């Protein structure tokens, strides 16, 4: 447990009448520092908010934007929703898998890039859509796909 987490927990709790409401913001804040939520972190958060460990574990596993395993510095989400699927998100994913040499859900061995799938990102007009560190990119074409891996991120 990092010393500042206690303070963060206090701050999160102060914003809500009940401790469990403070859970999501606190998890986000800690994840932004740690990049993911380890089992130890989950225990620490449970202690900080006086919540049962399984409760915190269930919540953390429910939301796909909480990472239970270490992720890369660049996180690429490819939308797998219907509109994107019709517009070729499968090929996009395969293309990226080939480029990175990893499978969906994995991180490159150098810890640089993680490739993840997402459900409909509510930007179907941009299908096929990807996100790089949560910033939208789309429509991604064959020509622009590789920019997801290297380019500056614009939205």
């Amino acid at each position, binding site marked *: 447990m990092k010393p500042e987490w206690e303070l963060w927990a206090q701050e999160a709790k102060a914003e809500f009448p009940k401790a469990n409401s403070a859970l999501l913001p606190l998890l986000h804040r800690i994840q932004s520092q740690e990049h993911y939520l380890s*089992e130890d972190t989950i225990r620490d958060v449970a202690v900080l908010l006086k919540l*049962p*460990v*399984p*409760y915190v574990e*269930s919540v953390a596993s*429910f*939301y*796909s934007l909480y990472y239970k395993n270490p992720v890369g510095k660049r996180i690429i989400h490819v939308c797998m929703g219907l509109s994107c699927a019709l517009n070729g998100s499968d090929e996009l994913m395969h293309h990226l898998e080939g480029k990175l040499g990893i499978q969906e859900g994995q991180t490159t061995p150098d810890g640089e890039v993680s490739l993840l799938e997402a459900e409909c990102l509510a930007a179907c007009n941009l299908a096929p859509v990807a996100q790089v560190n949560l910033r939208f990119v789309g429509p991604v074409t064959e020509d622009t796909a590789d920019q997801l891996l290297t380019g500056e991120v614009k939205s």
Partner: protein
Amino acid sequence: MIRLTIDDREITVPEGTMVVDAAQELGIDVPIYCYHQALGPLGACRICLVQVEKMPKLVTACTTAVQEGMVVHTRGSAVDKGRQGVLEFLLINHPLDCPVCDKGGECFLQDYTFQYGSAAGRYDEPKIHKLKDAAINEFIIIDQERCVLCQRCVRFMGEYVGEEQLLLEGRGVETVVSTVSHQPMDSQFSGNVIDLCPVGALLSIPYRYKARPWNLERAESVCPHCPVACTTSVTSREGHVIRVEGRPIPGHDWGWLCDRGRFGYDFGYVEDRLLNAWLDGEITSAAESTRTIGSWLNDTLEQHGGDSVAFLVGGQQTMEEAYQIRRFADEVVGTSKVAVSRSVKGYLPLGLNGTFEDLDRADTIVYLGQDPYDAVPVVHLKVRDRYRDNPGLKVIGIGAYDLTRSTVPGDAFVLEPGEEAAFLAYTLAKVAASNPIIARLGEELGDFSPTFKGAKSEQEVETLGRQLLESEHLVLLWDGKDPHMESVLLALRGLREDVTAVLPTFGPANWRGFERAGIAVDYDRLEAFVEEAIQGKIHLLFSIGADLLRDYPDRERAKAALAAIDRVVSVGLFFPEQRELYHAVIPGAGWSEVDGTYTNMEGRMQVAKATVQPPGQSRPVRTYLGSWAHALKKSFVLEPEWDPFDHNAGDLIAKDALPEVQSVPKPARPAMKDGALRLVGTALVMEGGMPSEILQPRIPKYPGRISLADASRLGIGEPGGELGLRGQQGMISVMVAVDERIPQGVLVLPYGVVGSPLNQLGDGAVVEAVSLEEVSLR
């Protein structure tokens, strides 16, 4: 009361009843997955859809409370279609692997699909795969693909037991049941999730691929491992017990079991199970041993008369067998010397004995000497159940260490070992000194005053005294160790206007039943037998289902007693300890092999059916008794069978008059040298029970427990270590670990741990730590 109509039949039920339960009362089965009466409504699975007139849509019967004039239809095309839809969703990703699933044939997913589901799925897409056959502990595997996410297992562990060891992980179609931090579940109530799971997702490892439900037999039974005697159903196939399940009794018992009871059924098949008769250390035939023992009996009777023969009965026997033994002793042998092998000296008059219903109504529960979680696990669950209903429940632990635990929080009074009775007499005198009963109780206490480990003020003692006298429904769970406690309990009963119920948490499991069968169980009898044996007055002993060396509080005396008897015969499932002290050891039949009745700690008689044949040469006691009678050319007729039930009193043994209150003597505090430890014995069902290969991985490696302070002083680290101990009567070594509930200067050790006999040193003895080399040189 509310009146409603279900499927054209009227019923009146209390307000707040759920439709599903009202239907159940009419004998109408509404399908359920997530609902369980002990857990309350959740509404997660939607299979219980029913139609209620004037309601626009189908409703879930488990979350809909009855209303006056409601008209419910539990069948019909709308309902069936609704259920069909629910099943279609449940089966989208189901692997449909029923042919290889242990639950097949007794699975609610199969049954309801057969009844309501469609014959084929409409879903062509590939199925989502999840973990199959993943062990969640030593006894249970999960098949996440078969799970219908009803959450019974999760809620049982978290809400009901209060040990949060399971959770739902993930979201949507990817949700799975898993263990906390993916660590194995270690609750001693873990096995109940197998019974609770309505589908084949949580399965028993030892029962795996052993049988299909249609080629096995089930028999009603009770668990033989502790005095709770939980109701069970025993599954057998081809003469082998292969499974034990809880057997709920509607309105009375939920059918929970602890893992000892559920998985410890293989004691009949372990390597040590006695299958042959032994005479003077050699295997012989059953006929030969019976003949020889018959001639010993004949000779002893001729030379020394009936009173030179004694019988010692242990906890494995049924009431009927106890009765047969007593009659054999009376009528064939002509001896009155029948004693029960025991570890503790206390006795509880039947008139004080409460029932589990008292726990359901209690406002104050007191643990005396023992944590029920360890000794009588399912009683802990019953207390927890009460605590869930009544969060104001007062729980008080009084003993040599902190007897409370977080699942049922309470107040702990931690005393010097063995001072519980004196402390209570002292406490009662504080609040009602003028009362003649209390004055009598305290006559010999002198200047006794308790010392507490962890501060307790005079004020708190007085509050306790008042709670004991004024609580509305008081239940005390007593470990039976200090015989003077009997008077304290009698005094409480005499003083209080409201209900005072005591539940004895001590064994042997069926002692109350032996009493009903006419065998006095008081410790004085056992003591008198040991004394007479040592004096050479006993020439032949039949030790039946007993093991004096293991049970009797003083091992050296037990040895001396057995050594002084000319012929010692043991009948049992296993070799007794130090078998060289026995001249004949013959294999007995036990639980699940003989029909019989057992009485539990409530004084309730319950029948356990035989379901398998005794293995090898082992035979029920009555067979041996018959052949010995024959050897004496005496008739011993056991027909008609004795019926232990008194048909007016029902299954509870009728109460008798209460004895007088006696005074409690001032406890002697032994001198303690620096660094000395006081031994405190306790009954633990896991550590101290019968051998079991299935349970082996769960049986704690470190049965002894000491405080952190003593552990660090003695160099015992994580997870535990071995400690040599020297007392006045010898030395033993014990595997110990830290338990934060134990105060400094105390070592808690279960009775009956193989290799670490507490009774070598004595319960309550002052011991000092010595090196292991010293112990091995002993």
